[in-house]
């Protein structure tokens, strides 16, 4: 397991999610594909946190402070924020899907071409 292999897996999952967003008609499946893409990005961020260090630490720094070392975990903090935004997004998306279904009796994106209720 190295950085390249994890990025390979991340890119493949992202591609699958992108394909799902572009080709599926059901709103719920489109939302699930977006979640797949979020997950792939999180995987890449965590892999970068594990396998790389900031420039301030690379190449024999003069002094290494514990604050600087902690910055290595920035990738993991990034992933936590992405998870928070993804949770908000899926909540709102599903509520929208339910509201649209109640009003229009459809959840297919090809039928939802107007913004008028």
């Amino acid at each position, binding site marked *: 397991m190295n950085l390249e292999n*994890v990025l390979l897996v991340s890119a493949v999952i992202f591609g699958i999610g*992108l394909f799902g967003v572009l*080709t599926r008609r059901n709103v*719920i499946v489109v939302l699930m594909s977006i979640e797949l893409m979020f997950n792939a990005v999180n*995987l890449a961020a965590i892999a970068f946190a594990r396998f790389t260090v900031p420039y301030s630490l690379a190449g024999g720094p003069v002094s*290494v*402070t514990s604050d600087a070392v902690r910055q290595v975990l920035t990738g993991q903090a990034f992933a936590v924020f992405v998870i928070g935004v993804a949770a908000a997004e899926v909540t709102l998306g599903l509520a929208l899907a339910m509201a649209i279904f109640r009003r229009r009796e459809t959840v297919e994106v090809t039928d939802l071409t107007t913004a008028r209720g």
Partner: protein
Amino acid sequence: MTESSALVDVIFWVGAIAAIGASVMVVAARDVLKSAVFLAASFLAVGGIYVLLRAEFLAAVQVLIYVGAVSILIIFTIMMVRQIAGGNRSAGPFYVVTGAIAATLVSLAVIYAAYNTDWSDLDAAAASDQRVEAALTGSYASQPAPGNPKVDIIVAPATAAANSHPGVFERSTGNLGQLFIRDYVLAFEIISLVLLAALIGALVLARERRPT
């Protein structure tokens, strides 16, 4: 930097193949409910890879929030809105061809960049600095900087048990918490506002409107 252990490699590839296979089934399954179950499986497999990447807190968050909350929310919505469970139709051959081309190109671009970039100048192991390696995965000793007692300077890999701290990845959850309340406290507060707004918005949108 590589994690050189045959066992870790085997676990990683099993998790990776499970995650990719489940992701394919999310898009390909005919039944939307099956897609949702495969989505949960994909989240679980990726959570396993998080453990290998020394992100234990994120693995727990992945199981609690993605598998426990997001997947269940999607499954409940599918069951409440019956027609959604009916079918997972494709948008037509034109969209499938262009979507496949676009997705393949994006993936290949990322993979090409990953394998053709020289990561060595950001690599903790290649930096061959013992202090950095000790501070990441070993244990280290630190002392206050001269003139500024608030800054801890890492002196060397710890030898004596007296003044040694575990490395960042050995204690990643605690260090992540310190990062949230020090460096990223503004973003941390904003994300809580975003979640509150999403909660209220979802309530307003999903509320049953009675005809008056």
